[in-house]
């Protein structure tokens, strides 16, 4: 599983044991094409699924670029539409689309994708961030929580029934609006990954969030400082390492 350094945005590529690929968010520009191009076999032009957590430009723009280059079997999304040109492009692209809600699940080669959020109509949420699709991936004993840009209210709602997880993708690039202490205590991750741009104007990840993770002994990986981060798991203890892709 790759946490790509795509600047100030999210892009995560999951590779299953059988060589299937799922891309979760695409980052703010076309950088993800270079990342995907270096991680997929050079002859492969198909992605088994895309997941759009929410339609903000820093998540959807790269996915629009990917749709232009790769055959995609299905796009999972909340169904909430945004205002960016990239989201309109994605909405009009001829591809199978499925709206997902909490409780939905799909599985690829033994990797299980459980949708934990949104738990009701995403259009009813006050903000796009709050309606982010939250995924829990499990493979054997390994579990990974991908949180989109949810904020404290959604984190608290999730914390009540959240099973412990090995790896947490920190919500909203490490903004102070997220990473609520109660949520971190419920998730109990051993590792956390923040996807943020080097020298970003928002100061993400903010020191407050970094301190919270440190206080809980959570090992933090940052794409702004470490570059691309790869996670390997054979169903047991996951191994994370910084492995910046060459280009």
């Amino acid at each position, binding site marked *: 599983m790759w946490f790509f350094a795509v*600047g100030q945005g999210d892009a995560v590529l999951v590779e299953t044991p059988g060589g299937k690929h799922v891309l979760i968010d695409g980052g*703010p*520009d*076309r*950088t993800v*094409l*270079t990342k*995907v*191009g*270096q991680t*997929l076999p*050079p*002859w*492969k*032009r198909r992605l088994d699924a895309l997941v759009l957590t929410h339609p903000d*430009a820093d998540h959807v*723009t790269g996915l*629009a*670029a990917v749709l*232009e*280059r790769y055959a995609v079997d299905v796009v999972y999304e909340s169904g909430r539409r945004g205002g*960016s*040109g*990239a989201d*309109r*492009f994605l909405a009009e692209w001829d591809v199978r689309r499925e709206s997902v809600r909490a409780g939905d699940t799909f599985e690829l080669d033994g990797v299980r994708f459980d949708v934990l959020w949104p738990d009701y109509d995403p259009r009813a949420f006050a903000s796009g961030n709050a309606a982010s699709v939250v995924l829990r991936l499990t493979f054997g004993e390994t579990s990974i929580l991908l949180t989109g840009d949810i904020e404290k209210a959604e984190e608290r709602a999730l914390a009540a029934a959240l099973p412990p997880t090995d790896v947490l993708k920190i919500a909203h690039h490490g903004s102070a609006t997220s990473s609520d202490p109660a949520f971190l205590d419920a998730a109990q991750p051993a590792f956390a990954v923040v996807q943020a741009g080097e020298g970003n104007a928002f100061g993400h990840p903010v020191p407050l969030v970094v301190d919270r993770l440190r206080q809980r002994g959570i090992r933090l990986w940052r794409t702004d400082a470490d570059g691309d981060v790869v996670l390997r798991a054979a169903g047991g203890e996951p191994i994370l390492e910084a492995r910046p892709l*060459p*280009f």
Partner: protein
Amino acid sequence: MRRLLSAIESSPSRRFTAVAAAFCVGTGLGTVVSAPALAVLPIAAGLICVRRCRVLALPFLFLAVGFLRGAWPLPNFPLPEGEARIEGRVVGEVEQRLSSQRAIVADVRVDGAPTGAGRVLVRLPLYPRVRTDDRLSFSCRLQRPEPIGTFPYDRYLAGRGILAVCWRTFDHAATPAPAPSVPGIILALKQWLVHRLGFALPEPSATFAAGLIFGGSSGLDPELQDAFSRSGLTHILAASGFNVSLFSALFYGWAAERFGRRRAIVLSMVLVAAYSVTAGAGPAVLRAALMAAVVLAGSWMRRRADTANLLLFAAVILLVWRPHALLTDPGFQLSFLATVGLLVLTPAWEPAFRWLPKRFGIRESCVASLAATALTLPVMAWHFGAVSVVSPLANLFVLPLVPPLMALSGVALAAAIIHPLLGAVVGLPAWALAQFLLSAVAAFGALPFAQAAAPAWSAVPFTLLSTALIWHAAKRSSSSSPSSFVLLPSVSGNAA
């Protein structure tokens, strides 16, 4: 001096040289002085010469014409206060960058009112896509372009007719033109081909290969672009004279066998014109295209052109079109200086490099790189404040592999046109070679000493050095190399 005047008087070719050179000098002076009335001075000098030194009358007259062209005032473009709704027609190629699109808008209307002459350079989000000829509208606070360090970006853009920029747009919408223009059709075809190449090769190899074939590097990651710059290899991503000469030579050879010489000449001219549009009609491509057109025309009449005059002819045509390019456009300066280096320095320096093997074009590539690098040093120092130290070595290593990669990419593209999956399989050799070359570029660029800072003042000693090198080389070898240069490309042409 007397020998020079006598040479001009006795040879029509040298008379053209004098007239064209005078026009270029006049253009440069005109853009610096910006006072059209001063054109009376060379006109007066020319009139005096009609009686006393007839041979110089025409050059003085063309000096005045060039001066007037250079000093011609730019149109006024009133900037609106605050944000305004801008509308206009997209002209030229829309540059697809990593995180944005850049378009040039003509026939601009601000809040519904026409502005007259002057174009706007606009940066737009990646989506929705904008294409040549589209009617584009957006909200924006227009700004005047400003210099970037020592680089007169404002004057560079003004030379291209761009008098306002917009870096942050809102609500942009594009409507396709009811009847696309010929350049619009050609550029749409190019976009389609580049898109197909993306099926054959994964990124960043696809953008790299597209850059080699059509020019353009803005789709690459900034770090990789920086590596190209530090290793002195950016020129291979700029559509260059090499591309024009390679494609025209290959096509001419193929067409001459099937359709005969004269039809092949006409078809080659059409191809060169079409390629120039697809490659963005930059100074390097236009220079090579104009030179190729003259050589092809000469070939029709079974006459050979003088190489120096070919170069001057191209310069005059480009300066009539864009007079400010002479002093403000690095692409223009680099292209012409590199070509002078190839034509003058290469033949003089080659004997000193006999110890290098000729195989795979190694010797030719090395000498050409050194020659082009030596003459472009002043421009690099003046505009960019840095020169690549590893450039000769990097070019020696990379350049011989560029034509094979272009050929493999072309094959992959052809396969991708038939079917994307076929393109992906046939493109594997191109992908492997592209990855290898990109790794080499990254490695050269990562060397701690790859690039040395060169303050703007160092352009002066570099200019003196370049002049001395040309003077010395011109004395040693004849500058009249075969005019078939532009039709018989070699690896060396890549630098121009």
